[in-house]
């Protein structure tokens, strides 16, 4: 049983390494990793849920190794990313199971939608190539700093900034193309 306060920051709770605090972290962040895997790797949603499940188990097993030198969410996402890459490698070697990593079926563009339509925004972002889509997701949805994204993806910060800029340029181009009659 855990008698710690549950109002602390993620990093405070994570450094305690106790089961109750980890349960609170789980309740705060569950679903985030599955969504990250789904958006970054365009995986099937069931596969993304399975990857999240495995990632939580790994995070719980290795919770004492978290030293607090970076945001807890970035640490979690690194675990989920490794799990997702393992799934991808396995899918390349083995005959791919039908439910794993099936590309998302993008609906045809509906010209009647307004620019503010969230589905349309998501469809445009999902049209980006993966190396631009992943940092864009981490920055825009999860509010990770370019430095944290760089550590997560093991790339220089300047590369991340460049990719974020190119993602925005590509999005502007996609929007322009859709607006053409």
């Amino acid at each position, binding site marked *: 049983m855990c008698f710690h306060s549950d109002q602390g920051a993620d990093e405070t709770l994570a450094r305690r390494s106790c*089961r109750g605090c980890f349960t609170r972290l789980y309740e705060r962040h569950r*679903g985030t990793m*599955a969504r990250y895997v789904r958006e970054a790797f365009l995986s099937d949603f069931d596969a993304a849920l399975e990857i999240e499940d495995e990632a939580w188990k790994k995070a719980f097993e290795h919770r004492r190794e978290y030293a607090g030198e970076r945001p807890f969410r970035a640490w979690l996402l690194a675990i989920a990313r490794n799990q997702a890459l393992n799934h991808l490698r396995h899918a390349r070697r083995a005959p791919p199971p039908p439910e794993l990593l099936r590309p998302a079926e993008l609906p045809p563009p509906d010209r009647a939608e307004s*620019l503010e339509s969230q589905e349309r925004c998501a469809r445009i972002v999902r049209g980006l190539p993966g190396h631009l889509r992943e940092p864009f997701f981490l920055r825009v*949805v999860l509010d990770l700093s370019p430095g944290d994204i760089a550590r997560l993806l093991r790339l220089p910060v300047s590369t991340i900034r460049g990719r974020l*800029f190119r993602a925005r*340029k590509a999005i502007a181009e996609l929007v322009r193309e859709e607006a053409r009659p």
Partner: protein
Amino acid sequence: MTCDRAQREFSRSLDEDRAPAGLLSAHLDGCESCRAFREVSVRIAGGYRGEVRRGIRALRRLESPRRRPRPVWIAALLLLGLAGGLASRRSAPPEAPAPLATPAAPAAPARGPVLLVDERDLPLLLSSESPPAPRPDPEAPLSEWMRGLPTRLSEDLPPPRLPDLPRFSLEESS
């Protein structure tokens, strides 16, 4: 300032959560192409963020089973109630003789331990085993199988029953 540089600087200002500087802001206001870039960048990011966060909230609702009271807690409360009942019976003051002038009040029944549950359920409540849950259809999707899983990560919970999806280990995949 060229448009490419202005857009690059604007992108950087978004990444660093700061407002565009004076010269950049002036360029963005005056150049139609850069203004469109700024507008699209902000709007698409906002819409995408909203869509994804809506998905996360929907997933959490899907995965949130109602918390059931755990048998250990019920047993502890029950024992506490039993102990409290016994203590109140022992510490009750001796009855004072009723005055002769007043009519005798009806005697209150003696208080014993209050059982909140049927005694026949005690073995079930005191045991740590919960009754087996009905198994879902083997052909059902994974989300159906995960519906009954609790939100707490406790080691004393039974292992999740997953369908036979292909499994592999880290050693195999590295």
